[in-house]
């Protein structure tokens, strides 16, 4: 059974996300669940129409007649409501994946999507179609009807069950139904997955109650947020999205729940983001701590330091949610990609990259935790010293850099910045008595050497700007983080002129930023714009300028408050994997810094104040 409009892909921003902090589903505006991987984020898909309308598989539930759509999350929760309206009536579709802790008893399915469609006025004809395709569309699944137990789909190691309050017609590998709903009538569905037998089958009469319990669970979680500054709703939505992208059993946070949504429509910049990038650590821990989510921050830090134990002191760029090496990259032979953007990649080749910035990001994350009052146990201290020693030995090497270009390694200024950050934070931790037995004199010597190299070779005198690679002449938005990590004060002349250069060269008239001078072309990079707003909020500009830019950036979120990795210049469409944790971290960070400045509170307390002033710049005489 083909989709209603087999060839029409929804816009990326037309998707919403639901999840249970172990896996996630993407739901389109037309009520179609087009992406689900169970039992965890990086498992093979059962629905992948997101990447191939005909072969991917989906589960649709919507009116049969043309309709208009409004949608929102139930306030304070990740429970999605989609309102369909047609001439004769309207209905509300509620979608969610129950969070395990929100279960009213332990006897609940391992993994489950609940859907409730209620006619709120008039009368309308609705349809549902379940088309499962296992393993990234490679395998059509046989559906069996088992009486009152429901429909069973056997695929590989697991079993899927669909329970429905209306009977579905089964045609071997798909099932469908149509029904007329009148005001007050409701259809209920439970779609579940289990790798253990006997599986738990959800009684449908409990669905409404379970939805209420789940909403309450999310609201209690939201109520913990300690933020009362500008853009509170947007900050809370971003925090909720970040929570959805966390993997509760281990504490890891993935970059995005999808693979291969393109950075350029029709292009090949399609990557698998269903893993955990250490690159995100520092910024993520900062926002979790400052929003008051200590449990999540601690859990994430524990995951980061202990799940990576097998490779320490060497760190890989990315790991699976359980701290294993991400799978080798392969290309799907079945899925043709979002709007023809091939290939669809599974796994990520960046796992073998050398990215020296990750050491600084991990150490800075631990330092923030300690400076906020957390305790670093002896094992953690030992791991941090191991990372520091690794930096001492390797900081002069070229690497792939923060953006992981698939080119030869280069001497990235950002990587040097984070190597400096790594040693600078270890020195600070030692000075505050939070780190014992570290070779501090050696750290100081190398820290100074890295600083000299950045201010000497990372600065281009002709361009009057810090540049992407040492002795280079290309710009890079990641250089804005020099202030974030405390290397340069935001109002220092070099930083000001660097900012102007980046805005002029990488900025768009709409106020967005490209991450670098890109070949091939791609969208503007959303977090870079938030870095710009935060740079202004930290003192690089006025609070009004920061507020204005943030307000402008908020116009690019979708109707549910979600961002992808990139924003298409001109159209404002989302590009890249969706939703993107890094972008939402950037939004929260910028709002936090702005709020702190407005209130006169200390910003980014983990940095040494006035790093620029402590280390006068040498006179640089270069071409």
């Amino acid at each position, binding site marked *: 059974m083909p989709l209603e409009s087999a060839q029409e892909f929804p816009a990326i921003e037309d998707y919403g996300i639901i999840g249970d902090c172990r896996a996630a589903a993407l739901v389109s505006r037309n009520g179609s669940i087009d992406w689900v991987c169970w039992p965890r984020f990086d498992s093979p898909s059962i629905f992948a129409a997101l990447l191939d309308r005909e072969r991917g598989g989906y589960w649709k539930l919507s009116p049969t007649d043309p309709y208009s759509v409004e949608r929102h999350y139930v306030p304070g929760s990740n429970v999605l409501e989609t309102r369909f309206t047609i001439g004769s009536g309207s209905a509300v579709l509620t979608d969610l994946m129950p969070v395990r802790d929100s279960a009213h008893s332990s006897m609940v399915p391992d993994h489950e999507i609940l859907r409730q469609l209620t006619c709120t006025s008039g009368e309308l004809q609705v349809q549902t179609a379940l088309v499962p395709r296992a393993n990234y569309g490679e395998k059509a699944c046989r559906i069996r009807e088992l009486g*009152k137990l429901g429909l069973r789909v056997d695929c590989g190691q697991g079993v899927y069950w669909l329970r429905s309050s209306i009977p579905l017609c089964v045609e071997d590998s798909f099932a469908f139904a149509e029904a007329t709903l009148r005001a007050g009538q409701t259809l209920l569905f439970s779609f579940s997955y289990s*790798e253990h*037998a*006997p599986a738990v*089958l959800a009684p449908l009469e409990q669905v409404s109650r379970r939805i209420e319990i789940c909403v309450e669970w999310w609201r209690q979680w939201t109520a913990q947020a300690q933020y009362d500054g500008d853009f509170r709703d947007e900050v809370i939505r971003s925090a909720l999205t970040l929570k959805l992208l966390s993997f509760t059993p281990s504490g890891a946070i993935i970059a995005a729940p999808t693979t291969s949504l393109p950075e350029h429509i029709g292009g090949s910049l399609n990557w698998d983001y269903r893993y955990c990038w250490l690159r995100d650590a520092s910024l993520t821990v900062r926002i979790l701590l400052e929003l008051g989510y200590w449990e999540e921050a601690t859990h994430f830090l524990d995951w980061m330091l202990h799940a990576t134990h097998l490779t320490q002191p060497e760190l890989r760029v990315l790991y699976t949610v359980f701290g294993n090496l991400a799978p080798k990259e392969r290309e799907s032979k079945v899925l043709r990609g979002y709007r023809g953007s091939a290939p669809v990649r599974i796994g990520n080749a960046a796992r073998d990259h050398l990215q020296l910035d990750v050491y600084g990001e991990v150490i800075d994350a631990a330092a923030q935790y300690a400076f906020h009052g957390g305790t670093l146990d002896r094992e953690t201290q030992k791991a941090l010293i191991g990372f520091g020693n690794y930096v001492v030995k390797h900081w002069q090497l070229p690497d792939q850099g923060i953006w992981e270009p698939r080119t030869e390694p280069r001497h990235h200024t950002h990587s040097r910045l984070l190597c400096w950050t790594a040693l600078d934070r270890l020195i600070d931790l030692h000075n505050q008595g939070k780190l014992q037995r570290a070779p501090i004199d050696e750290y100081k010597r190398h820290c100074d050497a890295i600083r000299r190299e950045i201010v000497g070779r990372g600065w281009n005198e002709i361009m009057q700007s810090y540049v992407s690679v040492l002795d280079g002449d290309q710009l890079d938005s990641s250089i804005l983080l020099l202030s974030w990590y405390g290397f340069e004060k935001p109002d220092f002349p070099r930083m000001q002129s660097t900012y102007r250069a980046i805005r002029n060269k990488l900025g768009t008239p709409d106020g967005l930023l490209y991450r670098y001078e890109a070949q091939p072309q791609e969208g503007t990079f959303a977090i870079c714009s938030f870095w710009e707003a935060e740079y202004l909020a930290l003192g690089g500009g006025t609070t009004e300028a920061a507020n204005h830019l943030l307000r402008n950036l908020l116009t690019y979120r979708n109707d549910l408050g979600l961002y992808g990795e990139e924003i298409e210049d001109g159209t404002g469409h989302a590009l890249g994997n969706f939703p993107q944790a890094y972008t939402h971290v950037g939004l929260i960070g910028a709002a936090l810094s702005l709020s702190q400045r407005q209130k006169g509170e200390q910003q980014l307390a983990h940095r040494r104040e006035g790093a620029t002033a402590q280390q006068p710049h040498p006179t640089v005489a270069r071409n």
Partner: protein
Amino acid sequence: MNWSSWILSGFVATLALSTLLATSHGVGLTRLNIPYLLGTFVTPDREKARLYGFIAHLLNGWVFSLLYVFIFQATQRANWWFGLLLGLAHALFSLTVGMSLLPSLHPRMASERHGPVAQRQLEPPGFMALNYGYQTPLSVFLSHAAFGAILGSLYRLV
């Protein structure tokens, strides 16, 4: 009756049975999780059920091995192939009679006739436990055959 031999051989055979069933689950031969199935007789809590079920399964194995040992003694025959035959018969009985009775015996198991309700939500096994994966009978036959063979070869007749 050689009690000390029964205790030792019964324990080893039960460990082997548990290990084989867990391995079958791990490699995808079956979804059947015997500890969870047994544990949910007494608790709906997933984690507790697995623990209680594991203990119950060990004790079960020991009790069943006693039955095997009675047959060994009665026939004055205890060797690996006779034990293996008993194991296959045991598996056949469990898969047919045992599994068909399970929805009636298990306080939390749903039935195909009534569907799941609040107190009964567990998926029933179906004929030969095929609902738990079409290779489940293979897994059950293999593990019980090994159980019987180990018992038959280790037990010393008196």
